[in-house]
C-alpha cells in the first residue's frame, strides 16, 4: 500500500516538474522540447495562448501524438504538417471560423476573421494574386507565440502593433513595387496619436488598426473618413458635415479631415493653421480675392482664437505665480479649468468654419480668463501685503525693543546710584 502511494507521489512530482504542456501523451512536444533551443517552436508554444488553453501540436498540425516515431506520425492520414504562406489563412480558419468549436474555448471571440481578411488589401492580393509577400495571420500574430491582444507582450497589443505593422510597411525593399511608400510608422510615431499611445501609454489613442481595421485592413476611403475620424472626434465631424466645406470638399474629391490634418503625421493642431497668413492651411485654397467671405471669416476666427489664447496664457501665468507663492487658489484653479474648456470648445468650433460659432466660445472664455488673472493678481498682492505687514510689525517691535532696552539700562543705573 505504502509503496503504491509513494510511486504515485513520485509520478505526480515528476510530471509537475516536466510541466503541464508536456503531458505524458504528447510525444511531439516532449521530443521537440528536448531537442529544440529557447527559440524553438515547442519552447515558444508554452507561452502561446493555444498552449495555455490546453491545445497541443496536433490540434493544428494533425497526426497522432502517442506515436514515438516521426516518420510514422507523418504517415497518419490527418497529418497536416507545415502550411505554406498562401495556405495559412485557411489553416487557422479551420478552427477560427468554426463557431461551435470556438465556443468551447472563448465564446466572445468573433469567427469572421477569414471573411474579413478576404476583404482586406492583404487578403485580396493573397487569394487573387497568389502574392506570398502580403501579410497573412502569422505575419502579425507570430507563430507559436500568439497572444491575446490585451496582453502587454502580445504582438497585437496596441503599443506593440505599430512595430508589428512597421515590420513590413517600413521596409523599403520589402514594400518596393506596391507603390504606397514606407513612411507611415515614422510619421505616426511623431503624430499626436503616436505620442499619446507610445509615450504616454494612452491606450485610448488609436493604433494602426483603429483606423484601418484589423483583419479587414484597408485604407479608409474618402467618403468613410468622416466616420473613421468621427468615431472619436464626433463633434468636429458633425460640425464639418454641416459646414460650407462639406459640399465643396465632396465636389473636389478632397478627403475631409486629411486635407488639413494629413493622415499618419497628424500633428497636434496649431492655431496658426487658421488665418490669412501664407502658412495658414486656409490660404492654400482661399485668397482675399476669391469672391467668397472665406478669407474674412478665417481672419476673424484666427484673431478671436489668439485673443483667447493670450488671455488664457496670461491668466495661467499669474495663477501659477499665486500657486507657487502658496496662496489659497482653489476657486481660481476651478475657474481656470472653465477657461481651458472654453479654449477647447473654441478650437473645436473652428470646424464649423463660421465666425459666430467660434466667437460664442471665445467671448465668455476671455471674460473668465481676465477675471482669473485679476483675482490671482489680487492674491499675489495679498502675498506682498503680508510681507509688508510683517515688515512694519517687525519695525515697530524692534523700535520698542531698543527703546525698552535703553529704558532698562537707565532704570538699572538709577537703582544702582
Amino acid at each position: 500500500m505504502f509503496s503504491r502511494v509513494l510511486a504515485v507521489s513520485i509520478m505526480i512530482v515528476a510530471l509537475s516538474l516536466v510541466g503541464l504542456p508536456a503531458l505524458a501523451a504528447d510525444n511531439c512536444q516532449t521530443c521537440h522540447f528536448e531537442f529544440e533551443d529557447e527559440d524553438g517552436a515547442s519552447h515558444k508554444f508554452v507561452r502561446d495562448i493555444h498552449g495555455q488553453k490546453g491545445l497541443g501540436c496536433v490540434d493544428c498540425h494533425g497526426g497522432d501524438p502517442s506515436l514515438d516515431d516521426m516518420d510514422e506520425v507523418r504517415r497518419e492520414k490527418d497529418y497536416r504538417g507545415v502550411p505554406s504562406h498562401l495556405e495559412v489563412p485557411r489553416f487557422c480558419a479551420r478552427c477560427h471560423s468554426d463557431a461551435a468549436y470556438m465556443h468551447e474555448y472563448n465564446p466572445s471571440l468573433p469567427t469572421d476573421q477569414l471573411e474579413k481578411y478576404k476583404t482586406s488589401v492583404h487578403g485580396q492580393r493573397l487569394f487573387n494574386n497568389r502574392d506570398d509577400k502580403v501579410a497573412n495571420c502569422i505575419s502579425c500574430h507570430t507563430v507559436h507565440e500568439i497572444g491575446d491582444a490585451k496582453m502587454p507582450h502580445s504582438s497585437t497589443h496596441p503599443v506593440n502593433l505599430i512595430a508589428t505593422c512597421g515590420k513590413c510597411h517600413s521596409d523599403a525593399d520589402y514594400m518596393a513595387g506596391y507603390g504606397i511608400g514606407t513612411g507611415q510608422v515614422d510619421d505616426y510615431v511623431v503624430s499626436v496619436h503616436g505620442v499619446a499611445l507610445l509615450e504616454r501609454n494612452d491606450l485610448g489613442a488609436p493604433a494602426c488598426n483603429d483606423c484601418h481595421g484589423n483583419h479587414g485592413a484597408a485604407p479608409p476611403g474618402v467618403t468613410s473618413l468622416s466616420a473613421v475620424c468621427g468615431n472619436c472626434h464626433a463633434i468636429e465631424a458633425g460640425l464639418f458635415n454641416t459646414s460650407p466645406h462639406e459640399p465643396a470638399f465632396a465636389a473636389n474629391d478632397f478627403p475631409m479631415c486629411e486635407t488639413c490634418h494629413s493622415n499618419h503625421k497628424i500633428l497636434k493642431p496649431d492655431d496658426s493653421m487658421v488665418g490669412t497668413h501664407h502658412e495658414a492651411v486656409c490660404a492654400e485654397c482661399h485668397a482675399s480675392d476669391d469672391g467668397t467671405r472665406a478669407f474674412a471669416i478665417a481672419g476673424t476666427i484666427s484673431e478671436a482664437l489668439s485673443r483667447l489664447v493670450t488671455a488664457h496664457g496670461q491668466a495661467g501665468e499669474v495663477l501659477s505665480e499665486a500657486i507657487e507663492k502658496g496662496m489659497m487658489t482653489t476657486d481660481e484653479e476651478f475657474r481656470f479649468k472653465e477657461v481651458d474648456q472654453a479654449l477647447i470648445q473654441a478650437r473645436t468650433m473652428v470646424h464649423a468654419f463660421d465666425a459666430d460659432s467660434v466667437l460664442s466660445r471665445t467671448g465668455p472664455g476671455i471674460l473668465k480668463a481676465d477675471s482669473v488673472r485679476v483675482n490671482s493678481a489680487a492674491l499675489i498682492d495679498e502675498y506682498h501685503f503680508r510681507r509688508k505687514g510683517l515688515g512694519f510689525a517687525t519695525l515697530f517691535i524692534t523700535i520698542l525693543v531698543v527703546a525698552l532696552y535703553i529704558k532698562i539700562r537707565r532704570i538699572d543705573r538709577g537703582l544702582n546710584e
Partner: protein
Amino acid sequence: MAPIKSSRRGFLEVILGGGVLATLGAVVYPVIRYIIPPAAGEAKLSQLKLPFTRADIEADPKKAKYFKYGRNLGIIYLTEKNELRALAATCTHLDCTVQHRPDLGIIWCSCHNGRYDLDGNNISGPPPRPLERYAVKETDDVILVSRENA
C-alpha cells in the same frame, strides 16, 4: 546739561509709548480683521447643498446641471426613472467636461467621443477609468451631494 538730559528722556518716553501703541496695533489689527465675519459666512460642508432644485434640472434640455465641488466640477442629472444621480464631470481621458445625453441614456464626452453609462462606468471610447460617483440625497426641495466614501 539737565534740560538736554530731560529732553532726551522725554524723547525716549515718546518712543516707548509710540512703540507700545504701534506693536499693540500690529497685534490688534489682524485680530479685528479676523473677527469680522467673512462674506461666505460659514464653512461649507463636505456635503454640498446644490444652488438649484429638481425642477431646474427637469427644465434643462439635457436634464442635467453642473455644480462646483471643491476645485472640481460635478454633474447631476435625471435618469429615465426620474432618479437623480451625480458624478464628477471631468472626463478621465483628457479632462474635458462630460455631458448628459438623455437621448442615448449615457454620459458623453464630446472631445473624443468617450462614453460612460449612467453609473459613471466607462463603456466605450478612450476613457481609461470610470467617473467618480457622488452620493445624492434629496429632502423637500433641497439636493445634497457628497463623496460616497467620506
